[in-house]
């Protein structure tokens, strides 16, 4: 018999239960009950895609359990540290028809669900004997442990699933090509000839029974394997292409493991190299770590001693003649850049004042102005589109300005030109067709446009006004008031479901 847990409940009958930060009744362990092995595999498959199995592997135990009537089921027990993690596991387990329990020791109570969001507690702890006792809303059942199934054992025994369609390697950084002993040299020469960078390692067969087939392998690590070669290698007998899914694990291209191997790296020992082959339906464990060396070290090059491409040069150096070309402002057909400055004649100063009145302060911000004897110079930090006056200028390089539609010839790098002209953030140089010589303006002469155009303000002392009237405050949180429902309140829902809106 289960009881629903109430908010702020701190005492429970079931051993090990305690409220977590959200008030959910949670034990240190989670027990997931599955009726069959395929559902168990399905659970690991989905869970490993959603979260890392490495987090739960140290505490994971898979038990084959037996009921008093000798029915066998599978019980996964794992440690959980938060109800968030437990929620995820429970969601996946229930998706596959499994049941989810939480608790400690041998007593496990049904984990929270929609009917009881804070979880369940037992009314009374049962005295049934068994290794595990599960308390559900419809049953209380004791189970005896028949055997423990190792997760690694489960992982290595599962058959790879063939992926339909042409071989896909996704975004793998590199691929492994495994070749039989006799094909290794030919493969490396082929790759070298086609200028495909690779590294290779030779693996001795693992020690085992004298009657077992022993095959030594070349493992070639190839970066950027062309698609045509991938198709060729996949079809070639004696060659297999593997896609890495971890530091020392690879799966044959065209196949995938039912469980995401990336999420259970702990299972694979660091000193070994694991190859999961789909065609041969086997998992090969090689002694590692593999020492890869550049593939061209294994290729025997050929030499043609008669051919020597080195050519001697008899050119002598001499002092060059001085080379100087004057800078010119020439019309440009390049698309115009952002207008970031403008040169205004003094005749347009009144227009600029009117604009300052009309424009909002956000647009005026970032504009600076300098008044020279000849011109008004307006410079913007971002864009000067809001001031359509004067000659619009574009910035070729920091501090170097030319009119829009013009460029400087010769067409050297703008940075070089700026350096040559002495332009920079502290000194702005303006080229214009109507200027005889470039105009230099010191950055310190530029003042913010808002400040430069403001006239003196006469200040009047303010007198204290009446008290401010505060705006209407919101009424706080909504509060349910249960009204009278009436005898026939649900008449509209009586006969059949109402029409959806």
């Amino acid at each position, binding site marked *: 018999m289960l009881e629903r847990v109430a908010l702020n409940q701190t005492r429970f009958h079931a051993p090990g239960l305690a409220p977590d930060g959200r008030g959910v009744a949670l034990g240190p362990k989670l027990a997931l009950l599955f009726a069959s092995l395929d559902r168990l595999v399905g659970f690991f498959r989905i869970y490993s895609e959603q979260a890392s199995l490495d987090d739960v592997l140290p505490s994971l135990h898979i038990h084959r359990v037996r009921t008093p009537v000798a029915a066998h089921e599978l019980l996964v027990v794992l440690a959980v540290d938060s109800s968030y993690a437990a929620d995820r596991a429970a969601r996946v387990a229930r998706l596959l028809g499994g049941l989810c329990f939480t608790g400690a020791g041998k007593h496990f109570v049904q984990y929270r669900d*929609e009917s009881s969001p804070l979880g369940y507690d037992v009314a009374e702890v049962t005295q049934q004997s068994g290794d595990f006792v599960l308390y559900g809303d419809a049953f209380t059942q004791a189970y005896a442990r028949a055997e423990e199934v190792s997760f690694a054992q489960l992982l290595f025994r599962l058959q790879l699933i063939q992926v339909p369609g042409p071989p896909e390697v996704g975004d793998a950084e590199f691929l492994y090509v495994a070749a039989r002993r006799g094909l290794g040299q030919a493969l490396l020469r082929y790759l070298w000839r086609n200028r495909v960078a690779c590294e290779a390692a030779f693996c001795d067969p693992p020690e085992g029974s004298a009657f077992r087939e022993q095959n030594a392998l070349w493992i070639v690590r190839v970066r950027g394997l062309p698609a045509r070669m991938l198709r060729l290698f996949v079809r070639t007998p004696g060659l297999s292409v593997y896609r890495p899914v971890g530091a020392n694990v690879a799966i044959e291209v065209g196949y995938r493991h039912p469980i995401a191997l990336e999420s259970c790296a702990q299972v694979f020992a660091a000193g070994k190299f694991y190859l999961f082959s789909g065609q041969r339906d086997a998992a090969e464990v090689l002694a590692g770590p593999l020492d890869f060396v550049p593939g061209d070290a294994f290729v025997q090059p050929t030499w043609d001693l008669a051919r020597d491409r080195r050519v001697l040069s008899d050119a002598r150096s001499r002092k060059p003649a001085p080379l100087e070309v004057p800078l010119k402002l020439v019309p440009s057909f390049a698309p115009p850049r952002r207008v970031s400055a403008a040169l205004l004649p003094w005749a347009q100063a009144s227009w600029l004042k009117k604009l300052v009145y009309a424009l909002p302060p956000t647009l005026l911000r970032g504009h600076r102005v300098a008044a020279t004897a000849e011109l008004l110079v307006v410079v913007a930090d971002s864009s000067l589109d809001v001031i359509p006056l004067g000659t619009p200028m574009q910035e070729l390089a920091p501090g170097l300005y030319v009119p829009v539609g013009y460029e400087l010839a010769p067409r050297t790098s703008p940075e070089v030109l700026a350096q040559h002209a002495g332009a920079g953030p502290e000194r702005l140089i303006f080229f214009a067709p109507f200027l005889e010589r470039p105009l230099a303006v010191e950055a310190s002469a530029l003042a913010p446009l808002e400040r430069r155009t403001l006239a003196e303000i006469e200040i009047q002392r303010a007198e204290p006004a009446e008290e401010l009237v505060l705006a209407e405050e919101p009424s706080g949180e909504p509060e*349910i*008031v249960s009204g009278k429902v*009436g005898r026939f309140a649900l008449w509209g*829902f009586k006969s059949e479901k109402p029409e959806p809106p």
Partner: protein
Amino acid sequence: MTPDHFLAQVMLPLCQGGPVEVAAPLDSAAYDEVRRLAVGAELAELAPAVAIARARRRVAAEVVLAPPTLALDEEAVRLAVGLYDALFLTHPDARRHRIGVRQRVAEFAGECAALGAPATRSQLIGRHTVVHNLFRVGRTDHRVSFWVGKREFRGRKPPQRLLRWPGVRRVQVQTVRLNWYRQAGVPAPARQVVRHILEASPLTDLLNPVRLDPPLALAVGLKYLSDPEIARFVAYEYLKLGLPQVAAPLSAALAELVGERPGGPEVRAALAFVCHLHVLEAMVESAEAQWLSAEGGPARAPEARDFLAAFAAAWGRGHVPPGIELEAGLSERLARRADLCERIAGAARVEALAAALGPPAPGAC
């Protein structure tokens, strides 16, 4: 319940707060009447509609600087009717009716609320203004015990006759205010309606991360965080709640997202948002965040691990939120914070999230 009454006594208090009168649920005929009255009516002719519009505008003005025009449209009415019928399912008299009929009320409420994700910014804000109080709706229960028994009054006051002669009859009144969603025993069908409402109003979903159920769906809400004003408001609300509180739900949502869409652009966006929260907290706090360094504090909880690892991964790869100038002091604070986050979260988790972030930014350390 008349349509006028619904607008004044239900929809208005849902929008601005105050007593929400929950009585008979609305069926499709009643919904049609409310819709006909509310949608397309001139505001000046309908006093409750004016008040609702003002309350919604006030809520919207907190979210964005220039709130859109929020007409009392069909969507708003559907959400309000859906929520109202869900509230009815916890009414003390609801249990008098057969479970099948109650199920039909829940189904109708669910269909009202099943509007799908909002297509525009105005819809997003408009829907939020109707249901923004969803997780703040409360109920005051009175438990009266007297010499021969006890009675419970959920959401209504006990009658005076029960309270008479308190000394002789040994009357004791216990008054408890419950949060409707968390504590009032909301049945599963009503929870399903709430799910629909959160799907229809992702902003409400994002702004209430600390809750039991349903979990925060970051994958849905991320799309709307690309709007700077919305993202700013959400980030500031999280900072107001406090990062120790939001760390766990955000972390769970992040883990869910990384598991569902490894390496996807959504993951990068989520990590960027989390990173932004860290930077904002570091900017407003002159000293180190106490909650990070406190032994046994919320930062040490395992469920907050991804939240911390996200920042460590982003900082390690040189991903700094755009528009932030790293002054010397801030840069040092962030570096110390990233180091602390990595130590708490563990290098393996940081590496896993760093892989989702992609190649390091130029100039990254």
